[in-house]
């Protein structure tokens, strides 16, 4: 496993100084600033060279620096699963000539990320097969994440202006001279979890062509984050993956805490871990339950929902809201847990396995379920990595990559748990992996309950955390800190960071750029299901319509995270 200097030396060897590749120092990850002419060759080298071996493209985004001559930065985050290192690549471009070569031929994962960068900033990617807007609607004018775009400027979409794929109008006949039919799956459909749309061409029941449209829940999280202070972004993060709201907040808080340079106290870390694992269980319940519901098995969803309601009771007692908790703060948590927290979680640890067993008795060896899901939506390991898959979907294809084991945070290295992996890569394998992950999460929570040491739940640093109320009421200095934190927001030092955690769906990344003020300069959320869902339209041809519904359910697409 090469370290940073060795990797830099390997890059310098292939791209000597002056060829357009230079290393940038002083940042959290190894960063290279690359000239766009050299970019395709550099990317190919990063992927193929055995010392670098960056086979996973985690994230691709744009950043707007209007004061610079080269206004836009296209930022790539790459990861090597075998070597375990991360590399960031930045490609600056000018506004009047914002063209960057597309990397779709190197990593298929670049597909939708580049479309998003085009939609949000107007950066064109030459060689991209389908460079259209992806999140904003087709009648949208302007590029919203540019700094000169007014956040409230809306554009109306009329009925006839919605996206209609050009191939949908062609009349095609199959080999028996029957016309094929073009059908819309969604955006309002009982089996689209959230609002998604797939336009498919059907030859009987078999899908021959598909195109996916997303963006029906684009709520402009990234622009809203730029208008609010660092702590005010936390309610927005809750609504990203709303099935497991706590994990988004924890991921965001960990990234900002790295930038600020504080660490949450040990008690806060344990509580964050327990609630994250309970949220993971909740998310898997919704995913498996909704998937089963679409296939016609409604009973297990009803049984498993009792587990969700009971976890909700615990969460409501901790912070006041069942679903969108806003419990995390930068530096820890807002309040300590109530004193009956531990006994309630122990009750859950006894209750959830019984419900899981009931569900497994009905489903796992059920011949109907297996015939509907085995072999459906199979994805090989190499393909899955190329598409940027992470999380249970990747582990079901055979790649054992879990950030909790590879780059632990919140103390995961001290817990004894296993990561489930399957090799078939089909819908049934994803179901098995998720069920086993739920059981492993219960193991982790059981161990974590023994480690809840008494202590504070937020850092004592008053540049970061609000002072305790009794000090605010009595001491002048605390009142002033309180006032400054609320009015101006917490000041985060200038810099950038890419924070990543293992959310329920995969690698949830927050690429945060700060300019030293009380508001974020740029937050890019790397949603795990964005990368997973972009493979959907390529998986569909050859399957039947009902299989499409089964595959969609197993991918766990949460629109709040997908569209942000």
């Amino acid at each position, binding site marked *: 496993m090469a370290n940073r200097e060795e990797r830099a030396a390997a890059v310098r060897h292939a791209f000597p100084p002056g060829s357009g590749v230079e290393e940038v120092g002083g940042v959290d990850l190894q960063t290279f600033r690359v000239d766009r002419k050299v970019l395709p060759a550099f990317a190919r080298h990063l992927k193929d060279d055995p010392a670098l071996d960056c086979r996973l493209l985690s994230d691709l985004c744009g950043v707007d620096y209007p004061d610079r001559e080269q206004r836009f930065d296209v930022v790539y985050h790459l990861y090597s699963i075998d070597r375990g290192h991360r590399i960031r690549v930045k490609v600056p471009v000018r506004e009047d000539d914002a063209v960057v070569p597309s990397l779709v031929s190197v990593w298929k994962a670049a597909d939708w990320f580049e479309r998003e960068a085009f939609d949000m900033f107007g950066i064109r990617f030459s060689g991209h097969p389908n460079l259209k807007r992806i999140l904003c609607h087709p009648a949208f004018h302007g590029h919203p994440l540019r700094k000169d775009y007014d956040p409230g400027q809306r554009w109306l979409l009329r009925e006839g202006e919605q996206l209609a794929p050009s191939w949908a109008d062609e009349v095609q006949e199959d080999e028996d001279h029957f016309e094929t039919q073009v059908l819309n799956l969604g955006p309002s459909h009982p089996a689209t979890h959230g609002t998604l749309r797939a336009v498919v061409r059907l030859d009987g029941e078999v899908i021959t062509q598909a195109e996916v449209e997303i963006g029906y829940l684009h709520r402009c999280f990234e622009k809203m984050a730029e208008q609010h202070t660092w702590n005010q972004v936390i309610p927005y993060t809750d609504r990203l993956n709303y099935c497991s709201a706590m994990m988004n907040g924890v991921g965001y808080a960990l990234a900002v805490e790295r930038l600020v340079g504080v660490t949450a106290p040990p008690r806060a870390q344990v509580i964050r871990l327990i609630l994250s694992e309970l949220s993971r269980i909740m998310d898997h319940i919704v995913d498996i339950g909704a998937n089963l519901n679409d296939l016609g098995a409604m009973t297990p969803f009803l049984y498993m929902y009792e587990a969700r309601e009971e976890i909700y009771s615990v969460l409501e007692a901790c912070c006041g809201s069942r679903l969108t908790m*806003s419990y995390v703060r930068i530096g820890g948590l807002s309040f300590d847990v109530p004193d009956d927290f531990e006994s309630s979680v122990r009750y859950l640890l006894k209750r959830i396995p019984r419900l899981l067993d009931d569900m497994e008795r009905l489903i796992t060896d059920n011949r109907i379920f297996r015939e509907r899901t085995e072999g459906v939506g199979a994805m090989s390991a190499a393909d899955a990595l190329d598409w940027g898959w992470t999380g249970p979907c990747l582990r079901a294809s055979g790649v054992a990559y879990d950030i909790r084991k590879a780059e632990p945070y919140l103390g995961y290295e001290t817990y004894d748990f296993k990561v489930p992996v399957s090799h078939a890569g089909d819908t049934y394998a994803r179901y098995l*992996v998720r069920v086993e992950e739920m059981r492993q999460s219960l193991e982790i929570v059981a161990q974590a309950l023994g480690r809840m040491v008494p202590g504070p739940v937020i850092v004592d640093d008053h540049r970061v955390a609000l002072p305790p109320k009794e000090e605010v009421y009595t001491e002048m200095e605390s009142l002033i800190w309180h006032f400054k934190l*609320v009015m101006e927001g917490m000041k985060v030092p200038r810099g950038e960071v890419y924070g990543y955690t293992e959310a329920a769906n995969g690698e949830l990344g927050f690429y945060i750029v700060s300019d030293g003020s009380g508001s974020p300069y740029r937050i890019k959320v790397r949603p795990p299901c964005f990368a997973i869902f972009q493979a959907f339209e390529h998986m569909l041809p050859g399957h039947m319509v009902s299989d499409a519904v089964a595959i969609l359910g197993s991918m766990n697409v949460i629109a709040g995270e997908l569209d942000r």
Partner: protein
Amino acid sequence: MRPQDVIVCDAKPLGAIQRLYLVEIVKGLAVTLRHFLGNLFGRKYTVTIEWPEVKREYSERLRGRHILLTREDGSPRCVACYMCETACPAECIHIEAEDTPDSATVEFEKRPKVFTIDLLRCVYCGFCVDACPKEAIVMSRVHEMAFASREEAVVGLDQLLQKGPTAKLDLGYRPYYGAPRSRIQLPIPVTAPAEPVGAR
């Protein structure tokens, strides 16, 4: 990752009895019949809370509708410092300040002339309560407030000020909690709680 960190869950091939499926039907029916008969004779698996005859008791810290607390003389504790308005991510609080005429002490110089909260913009995050330096705004446990029009939902000082003594209010999210009135109840009770729990 080390091999001992990984647990492999591959699909186990179906046996002959499972392929025949008749036995599996019986096993599945056994699970659902157990729930059915358990409910029929003794309500063992019933979890339905029959609202509105039975109401689940909300947790101690529920973030519901806001209440502006008053001092002993009945004036609002709020000094119109605008911290809740700034802390609110939804910008749903609107305050206009005015001088307190002839106030007893110089400490309470300002008071709110207008204090409105648009309850249909509010996301019930509790940041206003966290931001208030005077413990003037807290949240109650009232969460059931459907409106027939948008104008009805913009509530002003008269509807937000506390009505009645503080000890009788059904308070939820606030800076200090005394002895908890409600505990986490698992399994969630399906019958009405023994003593009434404040105004609804």
